[in-house]
């Protein structure tokens, strides 16, 4: 495996963000490098989703230093959107469009040539009739897979996944683990939130525990150890 550069994709210093008038993030420090997978866990209302939305450029930070891919989001919150891929808690799909049409639209909206649609859908197991059925007729898990396919086809530099395990069966969870590992191996940084600390730790290099809008603990994940035991690990994680 080739060595991946260490420059930080995400660099937060004292990041503060509001939802309405209330602080959802109240001084978050976090650095994520290329090729690194960071999981974010915590109770409901801890600030996980807001953190991901800030990194996606959807919620402008109120203060602090927020650099994503070298762009200062305090100054230009929308400037990184085409380089970042967000899988929100709800898959952003149009019910009347087919899986293929939804992925093609997502790619073109992000300014990416829509050549890899069928391949991306195949990678997430949406094949045959499923790919040409309006997504309103698909199950929650299948819709989640379609949203994942759009992310896979876009191949963003920063993957942001908000509770990506929700609505996924065990097979799809394995698939998700493979996609996260593949993205990291390709040099992308991955940040995902989860309500399952142990399962999330197994997929991540580091795990941030959030509470009250802050990161209260930053601990090691077990992905690196797993890769090392398989003889695939390279030390590209800070």
């Amino acid at each position: 495996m080739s060595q991946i550069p260490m420059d930080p994709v995400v660099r937060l210093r004292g990041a503060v963000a509001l939802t309405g008038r209330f602080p959802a993030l109240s001084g978050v420090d976090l650095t994520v490098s290329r090729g690194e997978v960071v999981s974010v866990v915590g109770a409901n209302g801890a600030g996980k989703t807001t953190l991901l939305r800030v990194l996606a450029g959807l919620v402008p930070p109120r203060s602090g230093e927020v650099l994503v891919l070298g762009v200062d989001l305090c100054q230009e919150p929308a400037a990184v959107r085409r380089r970042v891929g967000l899988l929100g808690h709800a898959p952003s799909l149009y019910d009347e469009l087919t899986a293929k049409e939804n992925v093609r639209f997502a790619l073109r909206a992000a300014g990416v040539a829509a050549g890899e649609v069928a391949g991306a859908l195949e990678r997430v197991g949406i094949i045959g009739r499923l790919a040409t059925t309006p997504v309103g007729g698909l199950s929650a898990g299948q819709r989640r897979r379609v949203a994942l396919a759009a992310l896979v086809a876009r191949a963003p530099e920063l993957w942001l996944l908000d509770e990506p395990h929700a609505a996924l069966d065990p097979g799809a969870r394995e698939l998700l683990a493979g996609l996260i590992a593949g993205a990291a191996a390709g040099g992308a940084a991955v940040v995902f939130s989860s309500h399952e600390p142990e399962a999330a730790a197994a997929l991540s290099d580091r795990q941030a525990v959030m509470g009250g809008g802050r990161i209260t603990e930053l601990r090691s994940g077990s992905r690196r150890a797993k890769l090392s035991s398989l003889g695939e690990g390279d030390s590209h994680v800070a």
Partner: protein
Amino acid sequence: MWRDALLVAGKDIRIELRSRVTLWQVVPVAVLSLVLYAFALGPVRHTLASAAPGLFWLAVLFSTVLATQRSFAIEAGEGTRDGLRASGIDPAGVFLGKAAAIAAELAVLQVVLWASMTVLFGVHVHAVWLALVASLLATIGLACAGTLYGALSAGLRVRETLLPLLVLPILAPVLLAASRAWAGALAGPVADGVSWLRVLGPFALTYLVVGIVLYGPLLEAG
């Protein structure tokens, strides 16, 4: 911007072709309103003919509200509005695309209403070019203003009731000018009708420009 506009317009029109909300709900409501106006005015052809331009544009005006509500209902699905923002798509392109899709739906609606009016009210257009130019300008104005105010109300819980309150007074100049222009096209004098194009043109241009400039901040604020 133009590439994004084509993308969004194509998406909205494709969704409309699949769901057929305009075809099965908006168009029938508009035609039905013409029939009801005809009942209310009575069977006197002369009365119907003189009222026809105003009734036509009143029906188009109310249909604009319905088409705009439908256009923003498409983006009210789970996470779709966020998805659109997160994709990095040009907001001005989204505005133009959504306005173009609404304009296309209104154009189809006007053809059906025109045909219905000819049958119900017995009116015929003498200056077709004037009617077409007035329709084009009015449609651009209605679609652009509707899209702008649709975005303004889209993030609110009371959007269904708020949108008509916001947009109907704003569209009143289009109702007046398009009706007068069509009156000139139907019964003459044509010169009187042409003078109302001077209201429709600037209205359309103003909302086109304001929409391109303001849609981004509105999308972010929603």
